[in-house]
């Protein structure tokens, strides 16, 4: 460097390009300031490193200068070993292995009796010792640290707008020797080693890395999502023990985590200011209009779709409340020959249209076509029967939107696996649990997924709520072709961002029911039942009441109200009445229109 004053920018660029150098310097400082009797405490030192990095990276613009690892950025193959990277990922397997790491080794010179300490942290590479020195294995100054190794994959279904952005230029690996595979750019086949069986959506492009957590302040949770900042290296996998040929190993992408941070709404829509109190209503109306356009002008369906997008599961005692899986009925059937062959993309133009529009609004959505071949051939539940935790389609990050396309389901045999798959999906809808099939002891994990089923008739899955689309909406969807979808003007970017922010914020709002409203609801429920009984009509059931309360809650938060108001309750009652009426009419009309002529 030409000038003598070291600017923050210089420090940051050193951090990004040669983080190990920085860490070594920190270690030297640390060693100098601590007493040598009990040796350096690795946990304490890790904290020092973490603080130093976080401090420097909190400077404006610094964070974005770190290159992004992994799909969809094409530079995964070219990330230089030993450089700092960011990885937005889902923890697929938090118990991928534990490793003990000799992070500080005491060396002794057999000739002179001199001793010195070598430090190897945040790397798996062996230390080369100069001639004459030996490791003193009996020394109490040796520090062993324990590391959790987690297998992390790019978040399944993460939409493009919700990926990490970076201003960093691609760091070319000048050494070349550490790279594997061909050097051509951008092609998925050139990505570093990944285990296909450990990615939920088999056959989809993704990247994966072994993330090694050096200071487990917080244990990584299975299917949890994090932004990892760490040092990239091609390392070795703890699952490949015992191989004698060292050169065959050590070719797994590893990230030695320096720190991790959560993915918050601010990182998703960084350019927008926090909305002010009254703004919710405006945003809500804008969203409703947009969803209405997507669904061919069906206002009722737009309302329910919005409520569905805002739902979140909360466990109370033994029940999960707040979940709101939605079945939209009335999509055109797709013909058999349109069916895709066992992939997780939708085939019918109508369902693809809806899914594409939602992808613009929610951070992640996954498409599951209910095509018999796909259902029979894939595994929905994660399984560790083989010893290694293999992902299943339903091992998804919390808050993922699952769009099931039932329009491509046709008559045929569902085999045992397919049946188990459907049962697994059903238990996600009803209980919000995903069973991890561990040998001899399956483990149920609570999850938080929203399921939207698009079907022609009522779905074979039991959903919290189903709604028949209006005839105009059904006609609109039937008229969609791939070409017509392109002609629809999407929202302008500003409004898209606003809707994204609105949905994220509203979904995570605290909510409660004041006693007066609760009492009023109880009275109304009792009165309604009495009236119905007197008239000999069908009485409202517990389940119906629960559904209306869920709807009321979602209406409340959609307006930005943290407490349930009687107005929202009334609105919920009215909305439900409209829905029930619509469904009854549609059910009455439907068999007439689509009846089998042979009958």
């Amino acid at each position: 460097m030409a000038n003598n004053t070291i600017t923050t920018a210089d420090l940051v660029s050193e951090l990004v390009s040669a983080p190990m150098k920085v860490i070594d310097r920190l270690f030297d400082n640390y060693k100098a300031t601590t007493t040598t009797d009990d040796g350096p405490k690795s946990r304490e030192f890790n904290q020092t490193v973490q603080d130093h990095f976080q401090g420097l990276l909190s400077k404006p613009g610094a964070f974005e200068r770190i290159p992004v690892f992994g799909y969809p950025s094409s530079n995964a193959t070219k990330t230089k070993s030993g450089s700092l990277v960011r990885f937005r990922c889902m923890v697929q397997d938090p118990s991928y292995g534990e490793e003990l790491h000799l992070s500080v080794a005491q060396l002794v010179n057999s000739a002179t009796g001199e001793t010195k300490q070598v430090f190897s942290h945040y790397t798996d590479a062996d230390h080369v010792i100069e001639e004459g020195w030996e490791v003193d294995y009996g020394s109490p100054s040796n520090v062993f640290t324990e590391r959790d190794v987690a297998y992390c994959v790019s978040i399944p279904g993460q939409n493009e707008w919700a990926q990490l952005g970076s201003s960093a230029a691609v760091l070319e690996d000048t050494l070349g020797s550490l790279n594997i595979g061909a050097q051509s750019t951008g092609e998925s086949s050139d990505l570093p080693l990944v285990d296909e069986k450990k990615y939920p959506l088999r056959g989809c492009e993704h990247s994966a890395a072994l993330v090694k957590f050096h200071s487990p302040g917080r244990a990584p949770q299975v299917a949890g999502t994090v932004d990892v900042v760490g040092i990239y290296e091609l390392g070795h996998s703890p699952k490949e023990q015992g191989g004698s040929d060292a050169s065959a190993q050590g070719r797994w992408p590893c990230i030695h985590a320096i720190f991790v941070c959560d993915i918050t709404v601010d990182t998703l829509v960084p350019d927008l200011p926090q909305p002010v109190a009254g703004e919710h209503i405006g945003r809500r109306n804008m969203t409703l209009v947009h969803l209405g356009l997507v669904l061919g002008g069906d206002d009722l369906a737009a309302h329910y779709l919005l409520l569905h997008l805002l739902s979140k599961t909360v466990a109370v005692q033994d029940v999960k409340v707040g979940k709101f899986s939605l079945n939209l009925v009335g999509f055109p059937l797709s013909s058999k020959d349109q069916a895709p062959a066992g992939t997780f993309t939708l085939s019918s133009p109508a369902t693809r249209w809806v899914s594409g529009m939602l992808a613009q609004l929610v951070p992640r959505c996954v498409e599951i076509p209910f095509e018999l071949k796909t259902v029979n051939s894939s595994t929905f539940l994660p399984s560790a029967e083989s010893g290694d935790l293999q992902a299943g389609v339903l091992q998804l990050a919390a808050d993922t939107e699952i769009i099931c396309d039932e329009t491509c389901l046709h008559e045929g045999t569902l085999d045992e696996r397919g049946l188990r798959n459907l049962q697994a999906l059903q238990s996600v809808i009803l209980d919000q649990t995903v069973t991890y099939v561990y040998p001899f002891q399956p483990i149920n994990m609570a999850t938080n997924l929203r399921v939207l089923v698009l079907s022609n008739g009522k779905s074979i899955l039991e959903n919290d709520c189903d709604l028949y689309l209006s005839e105009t909406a059904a006609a609109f969807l039937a008229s969609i072709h791939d070409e017509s979808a392109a002609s629809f003007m999407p929202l302008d970017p500003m409004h898209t961002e606003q809707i994204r922010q609105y949905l994220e914020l509203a979904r995570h709002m605290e909510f409660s029911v004041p006693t007066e409203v609760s009492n009023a609801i109880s009275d109304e429920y009792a009165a309604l039942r009495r009236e119905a009984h007197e008239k000999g009509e069908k009485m409202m059931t517990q389940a119906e009441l629960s559904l209306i309360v869920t709807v009321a809650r979602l209406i409340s938060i959609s307006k930005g109200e943290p407490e349930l108001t009687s107005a929202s309750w009334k609105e919920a009652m009215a909305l439900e009445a409209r829905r029930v009426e619509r469904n009854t009419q549609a059910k009455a009309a439907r068999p007439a229109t689509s009846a089998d002529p042979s009958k």
Partner: protein
Amino acid sequence: GHRRGDLGSRAQALSSELGDRPSEASTQQPKEIRTIWGTIVHVRDVMNTFKDFMLHFTPKHRPPASASASSAPMSDEELNEPVYPALLRRMHDSEIFQLNLDAQNLRAYPPAQGLYRQLVNYPEEVVPIMDYVLTELYLEQYPEADVDLVQSDLKVRPYNLSSTTNMRDLNPSDIDKMVSVRGMLIRSSSVIPDMERGFFRCLHCDWTTTVGIDRGVINEPQQCGNSACLQKECVELVHNRSTFADKQLSRLQETPEVIPDGQTPHTVTLVTHDELVDVAKPGDRLEVTGIYRGVPVRTNPRNRTVQAIYRTYIDVVHVRRLGRSRVQRSAAEGLDIADAVVDAQREAAGQSADGQDEATAFAPAEVAEFQRWARDPRLFSILAQSLAPSIYELDDVKRGLLLQLFGGVRKQFARAGAPRSRGDINVLLVGDPGVSKSQMLSAVHSLAPRGIYTSGKGSSAVGLTAYVTRDPDTRQLVLESGALVLSDDGVCAIDEFDKMSEATRSVLHEVMEQQTISIAKAGIITSLNARCSILAAANPVNSKWDKNLSIVENMNLPPTLVSRFDLVFIVLDTVDETMDRRLARHIVGLYTDDTTAAAQADDALPMVPTEKLTRYIAYARRYVRPIITDEAAAALVQAY
């Protein structure tokens, strides 16, 4: 010489220092080594203490708590009878030269308390000394014994440490210490012959040598040791003169109780040696006592590097199986030698083998808690309330379902050809739509140890293969599935029982009475076990209960089938304003994000969390075997 694969090379070096023959060694050895390098272990002290313990430990040293747990109270004479000489006698008789040492006995014996600590901290040093003392004592007691045989095989296997370590809490400070972990064995490798001594011969002069294993490697001598030869790189391994030991690698996985929320189970590698190979099978719950190890991952030929990454495993010293059912256990005892010794030893130590073994599948604290519950007169009400707390009221139904979950005792009459008496009860719920029948079913389904939830509409009783068809009426897709065989030993919950086809129901007749399913396929008629209890829910004949019809007319089910249900509940949707109001408030309360508000319901009874309830049911199903006393029998006869 004496060698144990589970203890490692330092132990081997020590035992060779102790001397090959105890008879000679006892005269001279303690002078040479007093303190083992790097530890605070004084060899002489350890030997004396352990010898004292072996000769003088009696059951009365045991802490009173565990003494009371044993089935039969012992007389004073038994209490003062030293335990271990009797065990040596048993070893002599059975010729199984392994001593399972209950570490709690060490702790209970006042002079040996320090020894317990040393055992845990320096197992590699202390265990060989114990072996040595054991051999010495054995030879004192049986001087005529075949020394060569005895010497190579006498092993002390400590178990029952004061605390078991959680697998995910094993950390670097536990390395080379004795640890005890619990878990489920999920995989075992085949038996690997592990070379423990390599026999080498010089190609030129036929000079021979044996080399022991050091840190997992046997180093081939670089040079012939014959001073007349001294040729380099001419030494060859002779396989049939080398010695091998059995070794097996297995994986132990955490059991669900100890896994924190949102985590997946950890596993640890076990290395078992010699007698312990194949003692446990995948699927067994084990408590393993062993030495925690860390070794470099890569065996790097170049020594000029510091190896950064170490992997860990446990060298198993003792295996204890937890929570087997009585039947399996008695079958296993005859087969597994090591296990038999474990049991024999435990009996001799004054404990009921059964009681001990069974209790341990559940943590002692948990068992104590359950037993405390069992004494609570409100237990039934508390449990009934905790079953599906989100469903309001319906307490009688909940009680019935609880009884079903606990199940009865299956009885097999000794007389040949006699029918099996079924111990499970079948329950039928009939009632108006929308009274949470389905929720009740799914609550039971989730609590039962094994179970299937199915809908009567379109279910076929045999097999799992399903078919997607179009319902001829509604043109909607319907799923056909089967369920019964899968719920063997559990609860099969069938919703919409009234909509089940005649053919399927007829299969249920057999299941509910005989608890088997007959399958006729491709000319072979076979009968599968389906020892499940059935929980069915059905709607009344006109989908709404008609007060003007009789119960039988309302039910819409053949009387022969109804008679096979032991409990029939009729659940009606009645109008009761106060009840309705309370119910609505309850439901709305669930939707407040503030969970404390929902929890402070107006009940005085404590609530049992679902997981605990599941565990309690599992515990009761497995361990409680009620018998009908004479008085109870009399009361029953009277009542009838």
